[in-house]
């Protein structure tokens, strides 16, 4: 066990830090709103040029073509966090579609989509979930019927984030009506400007439309827009889902979040006494701190396994379940510590941290429950991690 960085990695960190420091003036800030704000695109161009974004994407497609190095990725994210500068563009196009195309796309598809996506010129949304198939993708019903050189798509998607801003969608549709559930699905790419697409924002409990419903009525998409073969969409989507799992948050974010709660507890008072002086809240804070530090150590373990090309095993499987829960609990402590002030919202006077904790408390709950996530995660842990049997098929089904 050795948590020190190699000299190569130390040098990389120094290089990144100095690059970021010297270009600090170029970085967009929170006021530069909009996914395609010129300042954001210029910053992304700079990051791509310097290999601070898309480091491992081949140069032919706009990246730097360097070997994967999880530690360098970690260093990058730490340096962006440390300097507070805007990190590289993320979003589902960059984090999910690009790796999928690199793995399973045709040369034409790669050429057409990867570069603009990385540069932030082409924004994507994801069309997987449907109202009737929360955690059960195999049951999806959006149909794509072949008609000449096109597919004609009818159906509905839900939980589609950034649908309003997206130029394109990568979408699962049922092309083979007669095939078994998992085998009739295909993976299509098409423009969100295609006639027949209607987007309805889905307001959630935070009061914001973080997600959308997307309706397709006779949407015509050329058949060449498929990734993989017809009926292989399940396989392609699973590749994508694997990449999504790679997106799991940096556990040091939980630590930073916890430390913000500690600051709140030192700052907020009741009857002139800080919450930190209240042993009940303090005990809860330290108990949560232990969980946070444990998850951070667990994250080191996962990263080490990945660095060696080994499977992180159980340490990897439990991250989503435990990590989401932990973040939710941290937000809950923040709210409880703030007491009545913790339930303020919107632009109320006395509001703390712009209502961020209430937002987080609810949004993180959404992450825990969305599509029965916690339940599904427990199934995965018990089945893949502990070798327990799958739920037997219902006799009535």
């Amino acid at each position, binding site marked *: 066990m050795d948590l020190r960085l190699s000299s190569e990695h130390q040098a990389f960190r120094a290089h990144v830090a100095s690059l970021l420091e010297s270009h600090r003036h170029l970085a967009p800030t929170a006021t530069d709103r909009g996914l395609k704000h010129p300042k954001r695109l210029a910053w992304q161009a700079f990051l791509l040029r310097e290999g601070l974004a898309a480091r491992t994407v081949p140069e032919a497609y706009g990246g730097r073509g360097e070997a994967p190095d999880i530690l360098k990725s970690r260093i990058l994210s730490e340096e962006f966090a440390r300097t507070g500068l805007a990190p590289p563009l993320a979003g589902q196009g960059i984090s999910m579609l690009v790796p999928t195309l690199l793995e399973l796309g045709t040369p034409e598809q790669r050429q057409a989509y990867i570069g603009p996506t990385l540069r932030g010129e082409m924004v994507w949304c994801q069309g997987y*979930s449907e109202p*009737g*198939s*929360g*955690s*059960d993708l195999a*049951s999806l019903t959006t149909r794509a019927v072949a008609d000449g050189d096109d597919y004609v798509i009818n159906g509905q998607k*839900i*939980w589609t984030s950034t649908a309003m801003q997206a130029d394109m969608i990568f979408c699962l549709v049922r092309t083979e009506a007669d095939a078994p559930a998992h085998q009739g699905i295909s993976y299509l790419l098409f423009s969100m400007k295609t006639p027949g697409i209607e987007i309805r924002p*889905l*307001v*959630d*409990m935070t*009061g914001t439309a973080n*997600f959308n419903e997307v309706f397709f009525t006779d949407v015509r998409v050329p058949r060449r827009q498929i990734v993989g073969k017809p009926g292989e969409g399940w396989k392609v989507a699973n590749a994508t889902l694997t990449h999504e799992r790679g997106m799991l948050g940096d556990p040091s974010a939980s630590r930073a979040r916890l430390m913000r709660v500690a600051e709140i507890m030192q700052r*907020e*008072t*009741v*009857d*002139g006494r800080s919450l930190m002086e*209240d042993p*009940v*809240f303090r005990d809860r804070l330290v108990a949560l701190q232990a969980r946070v530090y444990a998850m951070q150590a667990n994250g080191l373990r996962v990263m080490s396994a990945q660095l060696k090309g080994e499977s992180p095993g159980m340490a990897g499987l439990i991250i989503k379940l435990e990590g989401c829960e932990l973040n939710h609990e941290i937000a*809950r402590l923040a*709210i*409880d510590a703030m*007491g*009545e*002030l*913790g*339930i*303020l*919202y*919107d*632009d*109320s*006077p*006395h*509001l703390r941290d712009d209502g961020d904790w*209430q937002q987080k408390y*609810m949004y993180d*709950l*959404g992450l*825990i*429950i*969305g*599509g*029965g996530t*916690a*339940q599904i995660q*427990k199934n995965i842990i018990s089945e893949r991690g502990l070798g327990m049997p799958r*739920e037997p*098929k*219902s006799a*009535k*089904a």
Partner: protein
Amino acid sequence: MDFSLSEDQLSFQSSVRGLLERSCPLDVVRVVAAGDRDAAERVVRDLDALGVRGVMAPEADGGLELGLLDAVIIQEMIGRQCAPGDFSGAAIVIAGLSSFGGTSAARAWMTKVVSGDVRPGVALAERIGVRDGTGLRLEGGRLHGRSLFVVDGDTATHLFIALPSGSLAIVDATAQGVSRVPLRTIDATRVFSEILFDGVPAEVLTGESLAGAAVNRMTAVARLLVAADALGAMQVMLERAVAYSLERKQFGRVIGSFQAVKHMCAEMAARLEPLRALIWHAAHAFDEGSEEADLLILLAKSHAAEVGVFIARTATEVHGGMGFTDLVGLHYWFKRIGVSRQVFGAPEAVRGEAARLQGWVSS
């Protein structure tokens, strides 16, 4: 020995519930939450038609001369429907005024509160725990300072204010020097206010020791009613979770047939049912003037907060992603429960009071 609601109470409960189901369905809740004060006032008028405003007031003052248990029953139905209105504020003030032993000043206010001529706002928060350096002081009959989380401060004609001394002060809400600032919480179905007092003339009800009792009674009633409100909201969340689980299918079966979902619902019921009994018991003890009433109310308030966190989350979890959306509207109850947890004393603080009351802590 009968620990159950009387026929009259059950029938009253059913009337209130029926009325609110008609008067305040989810569509109205949405409109109210979006800020439509007229819609909220319509619900208030409908409730007033049942005479609930004076439920705890003497008949001689125009009230129904019932008890806190009856107020709890009404408030549970209000929470059930996520309804707006100033029922609890009026009940709190009436409970406070009733401890002045029928002095003419107190009765005069009581009569007007019961009739609705006086719409009370209630300022208790500084008596429970001062945040953000708020505070009040009375100098030469004039009130200075500010109070947070004033109940019904927006609709109030008069403000009933617990002073640090334990006295109860009353000021005209429209008087010069009174500034009302709405506080927006996650629960937009109820409105709290911050109120600033800049040397506003205040009437202090006489009888200092009685006034201390009044403020304590007001606090107790406020706490039990907010617990009852949360109880109603929890009951709805459980019912809706069960109903949703019997509709929604996944993997070829209704999700309510999955053991994990069944057990989540069972755990909610197992926590909710004793809470209901505790709230009833506390209300009954209050009505009987039992020594145990103060303790029971503190336990009920803090326990409702803990059960509330569990049920609000678990019922949402049973709904899956739908529970997170505005479409099913479950979040209105989720937020109502969240706010009820914190106001009139967060659970840790209230448990601290319960410990002190039992002599379990010296300081």
